[in-house]
């Protein structure tokens, strides 16, 4: 059985552990053996974004030590995958031994939907859902990783689901980590428009693959449109696949 | 100021660490390169009309002059200023003007720059020029400005009529600049590309023509 190492971002660990569990269940259902290194914490993105690269470097090294011996590494966050794939080699560019390890890691780290569709070659998970679904193209998944078709394939193959286009689905929701807190007026204008476009799309469910966007859009909907739902794709798919025998 | 500034700026730039950019990829494909003459014409016309330029196709100089007269009547032109370039000169438009009752001015009528400017800004209702080269890829005309192709004739009057011999059509800009800028010891003081009439969208994004230059660009494609 293929073993895959789960990289569960800190936002999921602390606030959205259901997504982590859904990731685990999904991978198991796909016939791979998901493992989780308990030594993992955070990829270091907050420090990189704030400019504190000395600190980020140490966190990156910790991450590399934790995941260094694995095969494929899979994460339910494209943004954190971008940190590992693109920022680690930059951070460690002046330490050849570490750079080599970072580059090796970069080549085998995947966002979840990308792993399912591109590596496992599965695009229909046999899921069922009745309703209209819109998809938010998270910035780092779309432009960082070039992943867009993969999650959409997984959604359109859900039986009974009606995939609807959402205006400006590829425009940022206004999260941006520290940005959301430090520029609340601008961030609010952005997330407000995102939610308006979702509502206008006529969908009754918004799916995405990024925990950061989920906190932002979900947080705004919870405050202002509590009847509108937004979900991480992993959790949605896991819920929408009928129970087939013994599972954990 | 300038001498020491020059030395200081260049010295500073040269002392900076050198970067080695990755090599240049090959020139990207431009489909226009393989077009045959008919396609060149078709694409030139399509691109120009897309920019609201007007194109009339005529077979020779006689028809060109007839077309000019037609346009003059339609536009109500009574005074025009014309270039004396190699395309327009042989048409002998001064003679043509006399026949049609149109006042035809040229820059050479004026020894004084200000008097010429008065004429081109205030008197001429249209400027008539030849075209040195035209480019199919965007429906563009290229003018080499010199003593026979004054700059303001094609930009100051509200209408610009340009006569383009069909053999001057080229597929891409480079095919034209390679010729125009070949002799580095004798470059034209100015070379212009014009694609459609003058335009702006500066007020609330709504586009309109004739902001500072011509409101109409009419091409007579000859041959």
């Amino acid at each position: 059985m293929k073993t895959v190492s789960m990289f569960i971002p800190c936002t999921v660990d602390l606030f959205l552990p259901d997504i982590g569990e859904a990731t685990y269940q999904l991978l198991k259902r796909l016939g791979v053996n998901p493992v989780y290194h308990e030594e993992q914490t955070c990829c270091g993105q907050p420090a990189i974004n704030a400019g504190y690269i000395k600190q980020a470097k140490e966190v990156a090294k910790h991450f590399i030590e934790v995941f260094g011996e694995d095969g494929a590494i899979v994460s339910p966050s494209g943004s954190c995958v971008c940190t590992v794939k693109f920022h680690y080699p930059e951070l460690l560019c002046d330490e050849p031994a570490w750079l080599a390890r970072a580059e090796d890691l970069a080549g085998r780290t995947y966002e979840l939907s990308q792993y399912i569709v591109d590596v496992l070659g599965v695009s229909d998970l046999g899921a069922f859902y009745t309703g209209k679904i819109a998809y938010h193209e998270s910035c780092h998944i779309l432009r960082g990783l070039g992943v867009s078709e993969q999650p959409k394939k997984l959604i359109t193959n859900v039986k009974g689901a009606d995939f609807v286009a959402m205006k400006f689905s590829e425009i940022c929701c206004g999260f941006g980590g520290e940005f959301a807190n430090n520029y609340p007026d601008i961030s609010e204008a952005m997330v407000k428009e995102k939610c308006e476009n979702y509502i206008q799309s006529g969908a009754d469910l918004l799916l995405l693959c990024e925990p950061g966007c989920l906190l932002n859009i979900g947080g705004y909907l919870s405050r202002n449109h509590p009847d509108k739902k937004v979900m991480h794709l992993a959790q949605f798919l896991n819920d929408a696949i009928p129970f087939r025998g013994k599972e954990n | 100021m300038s001498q020491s500034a020059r030395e200081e700026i260049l010295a500073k730039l040269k002392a900076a660490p050198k970067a080695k950019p990755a090599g240049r990829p090959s020139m990207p494909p431009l489909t226009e390169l393989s077009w045959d003459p008919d396609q060149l014409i078709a694409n030139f016309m399509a691109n120009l009309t897309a920019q609201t330029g007007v194109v009339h196709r005529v077979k020779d100089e006689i028809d060109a002059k007839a077309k000019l007269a037609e346009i003059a009547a339609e536009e109500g032109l009574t005074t025009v200023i014309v270039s004396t370039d190699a395309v327009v000169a042989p048409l002998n438009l001064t003679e043509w003007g006399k026949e049609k009752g149109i006042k035809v001015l040229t820059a050479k009528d004026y020894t004084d720059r200000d008097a010429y400017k008065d004429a081109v800004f205030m008197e001429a209702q249209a400027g008539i020029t030849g075209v040195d080269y035209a480019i199919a890829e965007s429906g563009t005309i290229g003018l080499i400005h010199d003593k026979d192709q004054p700059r303001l004739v094609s930009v100051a009057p509200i209408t610009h009529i340009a006569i383009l011999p069909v053999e001057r059509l080229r597929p891409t800009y480079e095919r034209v600049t390679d010729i125009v800028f070949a002799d580095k010891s004798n470059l034209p003081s100015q070379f212009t590309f014009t694609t459609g009439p003058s335009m702006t969208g500066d007020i609330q994004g709504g586009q309109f023509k004739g902001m500072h230059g011509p409101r109409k660009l009419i091409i007579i494609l000859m041959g």
Partner: protein
Amino acid sequence: MEIRTEQFVEIAKKELKNARNKQFLSVLPLAITISRPRSMQSFPDPEAANEYGRAVRAEAVAGMPELLEEFEKNALANGAKIVWAKTAEEANAFVLNLAKERGIQYVTKGKSMITEEMGLNDVLQESGIEPFESDLGEFIAQQLHKPPFHIVGPALNIPVEEISDLFIAKADMKEPTTDPVKLGYAARLYLRDKFHHLAMGITGVNMAVAETGSIINVENEGNIRMNKSSPKIQVSIMSLEKVVPTMADAMHMIRLLCRNCTGQKLSAYISIDSGPKKSDEVDGPEELYIIILDNGRSEIYQDIQAREALRCIRCGACLAACPVYCKIGGYPYGWAYSGPMGQVLNPLLLGLEKTQDLYHACTLCGACKSICPAGIDHPKMFLYYRVQEANSDKKAAGGFITNKTAKFFDLWRWGTTRAWRWKMAVKTARPFVNRYAKDGTINKTIKPVEGWFRTRNLPAMARKTFHERWAEINKKVTSDQ
């Protein structure tokens, strides 16, 4: 030009409430999602065309000193006069002295970002030489004393009623009108008279071609052609990075510039000057001055990473692509350059201290980078500025993490490099954070992250983190086996 980059937050707040701007800005993203792809599709291979352009810019920046020398040599041979200026002050002084020497009463200008950067208009005005901006948008912005709202359309946001009042007061318009065409025509007539009797025209430069010593201007209105045809003196001002190796390179960059700027295949007018007019020519400048202005760029050039900013060709595509710009418009950026372009350039030209908000007010969404025809990686630049800021121990913008930031990240590093410390920190923080939670949701403001809670809730910290859940899953898996 007044520098207001430090008032970013304040101006942004005001602009967010401006309903007219909002209406205009709300359609701007269509330029990137619809118009730009459509215009790029006129290339048989758009990505190859982009790649080639990026390579040209990389090469031009890498070879800048040699290219400038080659350009100068050829421009001199063409008969142009070359003036080097280290600072905006030097360049302004040159233009002013020249104008005074020749008894110039007024000048007209083509839209030029470099003269905005220099603050040339103010300098001329103060000495009694009237500068008339002649690009319609720039003319309106100038008369209103406003900085450019957008690099391509400096006054795109100004309502027609306001323009009508302005033109009656300042451009000899007789009747009020809300018809943009009539307004445009009033400006045409007013400026036409200025062009007609013009003695000195001032323009920027889009590209300077090393191999021929030529300068190129790209425009739609014809005002720059007027500036270069009517007067006897032409002054064209370029910054160092305008130089490109060959005419063919310039042509390809112009293809990209026009498609990215306005979605056109080619702007209405491209004019290429190689020296002043010849003696037998009736119009065109008798004297062509080309000012090569440094204004901080040779300093920027010392740093290989910062130097990347000099690739910019000022097409303005990044503005429409930017979700932040599309909410706040150009004014909050507080200077000549706005949007991602300004966020990259202004910190280098004005200093990191004065421009902190510019490199922080970004979600790092990468939309600008993805469309940049010059190959600038904007987010990378912002992160680079933030690193320098962190190293300098200046206060970060925004207010959450202030001078305690370094300590915060030291602590955070401590907590994230061992899982036991991470878990301990979680256990300590959870009861504190969750005091604010009700039914699994926090909807009360928690300091110091009040910005978040202004419009958003946050899930409570998980009763069991994934770490804790895994311990249980693992136990179950082990016991099942």
